[in-house]
């Protein structure tokens, strides 16, 4: 089992979700995040003072997958989330030792 995590631009979530479904992923979990990286937030002039905002809204996606599918899912994610502009985000893969479906208690692949 692997966990594929992606931090991407908020407006790409829909495309990513469709792409993942197309690639046979049946579930995922999404949460809000803020990113700091090369992409800087906008510089603001607000009421006569200037500020740089350096945290930009991102969405964090987690997908549990079978080990052998992890690379493929990560690639799908990367394709779908790409706009080619700075701040597109990161995708990474982490090891998972056990997965359980709460409703049934099924474990491993059956739990996905």
């Amino acid at each position, binding site marked *: 089992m692997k966990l594929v995590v992606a931090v991407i631009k*908020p*407006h790409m*979530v*829909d495309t990513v*979700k469709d792409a993942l479904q197309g690639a046979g992923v049946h579930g995922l979990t*999404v949460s*809000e995040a803020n990113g700091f990286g090369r992409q800087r937030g906008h510089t603001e002039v607000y009421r006569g003072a200037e500020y740089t905002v350096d945290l930009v*809204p991102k*969405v964090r996606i987690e997908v549990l997958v079978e080990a052998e599918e992890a690379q493929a899912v990560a690639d799908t994610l990367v394709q779908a989330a790409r706009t080619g502009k700075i701040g597109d985000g990161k995708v990474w893969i982490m090891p998972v030792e056990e997965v359980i479906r709460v409703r049934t208690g099924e474990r491993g692949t059956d739990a996905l």
Partner: protein
Amino acid sequence: MDSGDTSWVLASAALVLLMTPGLALFYGGMVRAKSVLNMMMMSFGSLALVSVLWVLYGYSMTFGTDKSKVIGDPGEYLGLKGLMDPEALSGTIPTMAFVAFQGVFAVITVALISGAIADRAKFGTWMVFVGIWVTLVYFPVAHWVWGGGWIMKDVEAIDFAGGTAVHINAGVAGLALALVLGKRIGFAKEPMRPHNLPLVMIGAGLLWFGWFGFNAGSAVAANATASVAWVNTFVATGAATLGWLLTERFRDGHATSLGAASGVVAGLVAITPACHSVSPVGAIALGALAGVLCALAVGLKYRFGYDDSLDVVGVHLVGGLVGTLAIGLLADPDAPAGASGLLAGGGASLLGKQAIGAFSVLGYSLIVTLIIGLVLEKTIGFRVTTETEVSGIDLDVHAESGYDLTPATSGAFRQQSSKAAAPTGEGAMA
């Protein structure tokens, strides 16, 4: 007809109308985020239904020719018939202006009750309750107090703007419904704190503003009585807010914004019956007393175990009683009402009248509301399912949720499947 008086009554009617949306916000901010819409809908629903019933037969039941000091003739002004005549006057104003002003009182009284049953009442049953309650309780009680009924004619209790007819009445009806529906899941275990205090403050602000129509408008003229009522309403509220905040500060260590908003309302409630019978200094005393007592009274529900969710009992019933009875003590002969309370040397008779008026209405409203509530609960059901209550009444009952503020969920997700549904009854609009 006096155009100045008419102008003030029309403006006052609009001010009182605003109190119901104001109440919707005040109550709406106090519940948890998952039931804000249901809470507001109970007020909006009252406004919608009561306005129609008022025009159809409510005005006539309340202000039609008195029958045995119990009720007005419901047929007399059915559908307000005859009242568009420009010669139809109530005092110095067109009767239609009086219809307007009194109509919004009926609306807000019913809406007040909803605070006692937050988070757990079926909206459809609530609407049925509204129609029955306003007919069996509000219209008769308002007739007794203002329309020529026995409290006005025989008891001669003072209720300038509705301490008895509105606040005691609604407050005890709230208690009755809280008993019928039972406690919210988690009552006295979870904090169930207001989800949006700025919304509570907006509501409190609008209630405050509208209440000047409620109280000073009850003079039904733009004159010295209205002016005294205005000033008394202003200062009693300030004193009550100070009283509530000091009570909190002393007891809990903090003065809260919910306390400020509640103190405002407690003061407004308490001065309502009394605003033309006490002096401004009397109004300060009355307000401060109401602020302190109501601040203590909102804790009673934990002691006695009834879930008066948004403190309708603690604020409206207790505040209404404080104001109504305090007239018996504080009434100042120099005030427009010209009555003398105990402290002004007028003896205890006024206090007695006030108590009779207050407790009669309290008893009547309690019993009738309990009956209505129980019948509805046993027949069509009044309380939602546990699941609906836990997951949130807004989503289940109204298919909506109050807020969608997060960037990712607002527009970022295109729906899996979606289609534009044609309005039912295809050709309806064609």
